[in-house]
Each structure stands twice: as structure tokens, then as C-alpha cells.
């Protein structure tokens, strides 16, 4: 028996499973800009399970404003023309749980706001996607004033802030569980059920 007529309850999610690899990742997916772009930066990290072991079958998507804080509305994320910044990327992790995007650092969408990249996590074993954000580490004043960060317990805030690599890249590791469990987000109109939690 399917949905009853007039029922507007959202559908439940299901895991992306282990076998998305031939379907969802595509050439150019992780490259929001070309590596030769003057503002190109690498955003990368590793996805870990509750035992601290890298997850080899996760898929990460990002969505962000451009370097000036403008929200893109242009299509072309699947067939990139090499010039248009569409703000969206998709990368599967490799055999050791590592993902990598080539993008630009997001600008602030309003004056004084802390810039961040939105991150969506999918994996085998994960029944529904998880949302999180990664903030740029250097904007100290803006980070201190950010309403979301301020609402997160202080001892967990660091899980939302990328680390700066020596080569200028941004490292954002994702942990499903453990002491440094990433803060995952829920939104007002977006039902999600965790099951029993702490």
C-alpha cells in the first residue's frame, strides 16, 4: 500500500548503500574550480567510524557561496564548463576514507558573518544523510560572534572548524562517533530520527 492521497508527510530516507560508486560520483564532481584558478584551495578530510577506522564507502557533497559571498544559482554542476562557479561538489571517499575537493574559500554572505561551507555526508550504514558545516579557521571575531557556533557546547565547537594545512589547504575530518564526534545539524522543517542517543 503506497502513500494515501493527500498525505504530505515527507518520505523517509534510506542508506545510499555500498554500491553508489558507479552511479553518483562523476568526473569533475569534486572540482568546483580548476586547480589553476588563482583562488583554488583544497578542502579535504577523512571520514571515521565509531572505532576511529576510516570509512571506505562514504560520499560527501558540499554547497557554498563564491569567494565574494554570492550564492550561485547557475546550473552546470554535472557538466562543468570550466568557468562557471556553481557552488556545488560531490566526492566519494577513497579506500582509506579520504575525500578531496578543489574549490574557493567561501565569502561571508553578509557583512561580518563567519564564512562556511555546507557539508552533506552519505555512507553505507548511515540511514539518512547528515548535514554539517565547516568554518574557516582564521575569522576569529566572526567565529566568536556566529550564532550557530555560539549555540554549540564549547567542547564540541572545534568539530565544525576546518584546520589550515601547511600548504594552505583546509582539512575537515568527519567523525560519526567518539570524543570528537562531529556536530551534525537538523533544520526546523526537516524531520530526522536518530534513535537512542546520549
Amino acid at each position: 500500500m503506497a502513500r494515501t492521497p493527500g498525505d504530505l508527510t515527507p518520505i523517509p530516507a534510506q542508506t545510499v548503500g555500498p554500491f553508489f560508486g558507479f552511479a553518483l560520483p562523476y568526473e569533475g564532481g569534486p572540482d568546483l574550480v580548476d586547480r589553476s584558478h588563482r583562488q583554488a584551495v583544497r578542502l579535504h578530510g577523512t571520514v571515521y567510524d565509531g572505532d576511529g577506522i576510516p570509512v571506505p564507502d562514504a560520499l560527501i557533497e558540499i554547497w557554498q557561496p563564491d569567494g565574494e559571498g554570492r550564492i550561485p544559482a547557475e546550473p552546470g554542476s554535472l557538466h562543468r564548463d570550466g568557468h562557471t562557479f556553481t557552488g556545488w561538489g560531490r566526492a566519494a571517499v577513497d579506500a582509506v576514507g579520504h575525500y578531496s575537493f578543489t574549490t574557493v574559500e567561501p565569502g561571508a554572505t553578509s557583512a561580518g558573518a563567519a564564512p562556511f561551507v555546507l557539508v552533506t555526508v552519505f555512507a553505507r550504514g548511515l540511514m539518512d544523510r547528515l548535514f554539517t558545516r565547516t568554518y574557516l579557521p582564521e575569522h576569529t571575531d566572526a567565529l566568536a560572534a556566529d550564532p550557530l557556533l555560539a549555540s554549540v557546547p564549547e567542547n564540541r565547537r572545534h568539530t565544525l572548524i576546518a584546520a589550515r594545512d601547511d600548504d594552505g589547504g583546509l582539512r575537515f575530518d568527519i567523525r560519526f562517533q567518539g570524543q570528537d564526534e562531529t556536530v551534525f545539524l537538523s533544520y526546523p522543517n526537516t524531520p530526522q530520527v536518530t534513535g537512542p542517543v546520549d
Partner: protein
Amino acid sequence: MAEKPTDPDAAAASQEEIDAEIAQVHRDYESRKATDGEETSARLNFPPYRSSLLRHPTKSLHHADPEEIELHSPAFGHQDVSPLEADLTIQHHGEPIGERIVVTGRVLDGDGRPVANQLIEMWQANAAGRYMHKRDQHPAPLDPNFTGVGRALTGPNGEYTFTTIKPAPYPWKNHHNAWRSAHLHFSMFGTDFTQRIVTQMYFPGDPIFDLDPIYQSITDPKARDRLVAEYDHSVSQHEWNTGYRWDIVLSGSNRTWSEQEEH
């Protein structure tokens, strides 16, 4: 923290043990539904699905008030998706093996607005229950005429249509003699970043439903039903395909819509 084996190759528990665990979670849910509310989603923490044990957050999800960027979705257009990609049976030189089906329906948001011009991605196993994926090594044949990947943009009223081959159930190693109900994977974006969803569409009357911990991770029977398509004879075509209808409701938009934007 996990006492149960989480190795995807463990296949340790029997179906009876998994069934009992599922039944227990469902009973607990039913007994608390009146006070805790109806669950409409799958549980992130669902121990009968062993792979969820080490991959669910152990802390409550943190409430976020969406900011401007979260109220918009990435855009995909006709340069991203060819209309031919909605027919999974024409991607190779020959006819794929199996029951040709058409799956059609509408995508709406939680307020009943059609979700138009939006990307739907779909992928699946073939008629023997095998994925075109190097890690799927169970001994069922690959079909040289079937990859199992489709894409479509929704029409002005949120409508979509895929032509494909009905997938078969397949074995997996969650427990001993574990089989997945036949399903199609669907991926959708919506008009808000917050509406992003990946899910699975199931076929009516599947005998494996009760045994499948992924399907049963949705504790509420009404919510499970929302993932089941219905057979629709008006979608079946003479001498060509059988037809299924599956309407998809995404979550509500978090945006405050003005009159102008709505139309």
C-alpha cells in the same frame, strides 16, 4: 561501544535473531508513540542493520536555523541531464534482460508545491540482483546491456518518468542468509539545501519486506508504506512495459515564500 559485530562480512546472526531485534525496536516504538510522537524517518541508530552501529551519531542532532545559503539548492539544468538518461533500457546496443517497467510520479514539497526542474538521480541492480559495481561480487550475471543509472529533471508539475528493468532482490552480509528487498535508489535535491534526500523505492507485495533491516529501520508502518510504489495499469503499455506510480514528498521548505515565488 558496539557489542554486535559490525564487520559487513560477519554474517553472524541468524534471520530469527535479526527478526527478534527488529520486533523489539518496533514494539518499543509503538508503546512510546503516543507520548514521543510518530516517527516519519528511518532511524540512524538501528542495531539490526549492523553497519549502522558505528556510523550513527551518538549525540542528538544540533538545531540549526538555516542561513541564506541553506535556503537555496544547487541548480541543475538541461546541460546537466539529457532526456535520454531517463530511459535506462537504451544505454547500450542491445535490449537489457528482465521485466521492462516504467516508474512515474510527482515530486512535491511538504507544503504540496510541485518541485519543478529539479534533478532526480536513480540507480539500481539489474534483473539478476547484481550491481555494475566492482565490490558487488555475488555470483549473479552482469547484463552487458544494462548499467542501472538514470537521471531526470522534473517537469513543471514536478512529474518524472523512468523507463527501466525491474531489479531483483540480492543477498548481503548483514546476517546469515540476508536478502535485500528489490529496490531503486533515488536521490533528490528540492529547492532548499535542507531538502536533500537519498532514499529507496520498493515494489508492492515484496515477500522480503519483513526480513529486511534497512526497510524496517523505518519504525512506523505508515512511513514504510510511503516508500512502496503502487502498480498502475494505466502506466503499463500494450506489448511493452508494466507500470508503477510513486509520488515523492520532500520535506517542507525552510524558506518564507512570497506570493510571487510560488508561481
